[in-house]
């Protein structure tokens, strides 16, 4: 269970103000809300990338093993799709095969595994980023920031199935704009309330 108490974060203006929320220790939880409501900021705080917040999070993001697929794919342009996934496994030859298999599970064609990011479509890049996050098999918290934004509905469902299968026993937190899809694939859907963000309901 992750417990957030009086969480606040400001940049030029307040983005999150006095947020109290509790997240389960496992399952697929979707967060829905309009653009700019503080979803991504919250995810960055939970990932341990943003530490300039006030309030408390139990357990602290530093104590958790977190894996994440960013909103933008953030791939190394000079490494192939499979190598980008393999990077987080230590870039070892022995793990390249399992990295490739993960991509194949997410609907990649064999011929696309050795393509560089520049040669991949937006949807394919998003899946490489997804596979990279899923390659970490022992994370306690998986964070996905708009993982299905550039995927068609069918591929999004396929990816959601893979995510659920690969992260069983851990907590998956995903920002999803399509509320219908969010209800279909999640154990729980939370809506962002307030501007700045004050509650998740």
């Amino acid at each position, binding site marked *: 269970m992750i417990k957030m108490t009086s969480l606040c974060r400001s940049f030029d203006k307040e983005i999150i103000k006095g947020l109290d929320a509790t997240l389960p220790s496992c399952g697929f939880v979707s967060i829905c809300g309009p653009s700019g409501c503080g979803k991504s900021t919250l995810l960055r705080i939970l990932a341990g990338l943003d530490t300039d917040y006030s309030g408390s999070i139990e357990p602290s993001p530093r104590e958790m093993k977190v894996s994440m697929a*960013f909103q*933008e794919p953030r791939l190394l342009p000079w490494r192939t799709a499979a190598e980008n996934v393999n990077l987080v496994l230590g*870039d070892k030859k022995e793990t390249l095969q399992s990295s490739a298999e993960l991509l194949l599970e997410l609907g990649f064609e064999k011929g696309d595994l050795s393509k560089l990011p520049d040669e991949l479509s937006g949807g394919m890049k998003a899946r490489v980023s997804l596979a990279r996050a899923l390659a970490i098999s022992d994370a306690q918290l998986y964070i996905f920031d708009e993982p299905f934004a550039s995927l068609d509905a069918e591929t999004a469902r396929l990816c959601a199935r893979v995510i659920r299968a690969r992260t069983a026993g851990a907590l998956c937190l995903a920002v999803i704009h399509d509320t219908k899809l969010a209800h279909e694939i999640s154990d729980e859907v939370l809506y962002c309330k307030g501007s700045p963000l004050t509650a998740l309901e």
Partner: protein
Amino acid sequence: MKILKKSAPFLGVALFWVLLWQLAAWKTGTALLLPSPLETLTRLWELAHTAEFFKITALSLLRVFAGALSAIIAGTLLAALCARFKVLERLLAPVITVVRATPVASFIILAMLWIGRGVLPSFISFLMVFPIVFTNVLEGISQVPKDLLEMARLFRLSPILKLRRIYLPSVAPYFTSAARSSLGLSWKAGISAEVLAFSPDSIGKMISQSKNHLETVDLFAWTAVIIILSVGIEFLFSRGIERLGRRIGGKSK
């Protein structure tokens, strides 16, 4: 046949300029002012048949490139340190600016007072290459995409993996472009230093001697040696860099 077709335009251009040179030599009428291409080539052929020629050329190459290589290593390491410790960067900034702005002739003359004539070309070559490599590598490090570094932090990539897979490929284009442009410069500056310092067993000394003895054909022949070596080095370096680039995985700038 294909090679002949490919090189035909180049050969045509070369022939045009050689003919123009020949015409100018005819018009001048004396090898003292302007030797003809044939006279230059003949002298070059004669020189190439002496043991001294290879010794002199090899020593000049060794001197200049020992300096350039030390500058490449020192410039890269120091740039990496400056990227890590900003105080060091601020401390070095005026030195780099002064070295870049000072005419090479001033350095040669000063260095003649400070160090031996033998090491002078290496020192001058070092001074030519160091600021260019340092500045470019530092710029390259500052341009490493922040979002990739954040990704590396999240996935707790090891420092070695970060260096190999993020820093090296990102900085490689800046490094190669600096090394390529400064290498030719260091070769020419190194030879100039040899001329002024009259370095023993050097191309510069031969040039200096040919000027003193009014042997313009010799001057042309040695200059041709410098040009041929310069083009050859640039070609070999570009090939080497391409290979290295492919291994590291960076893109060429």
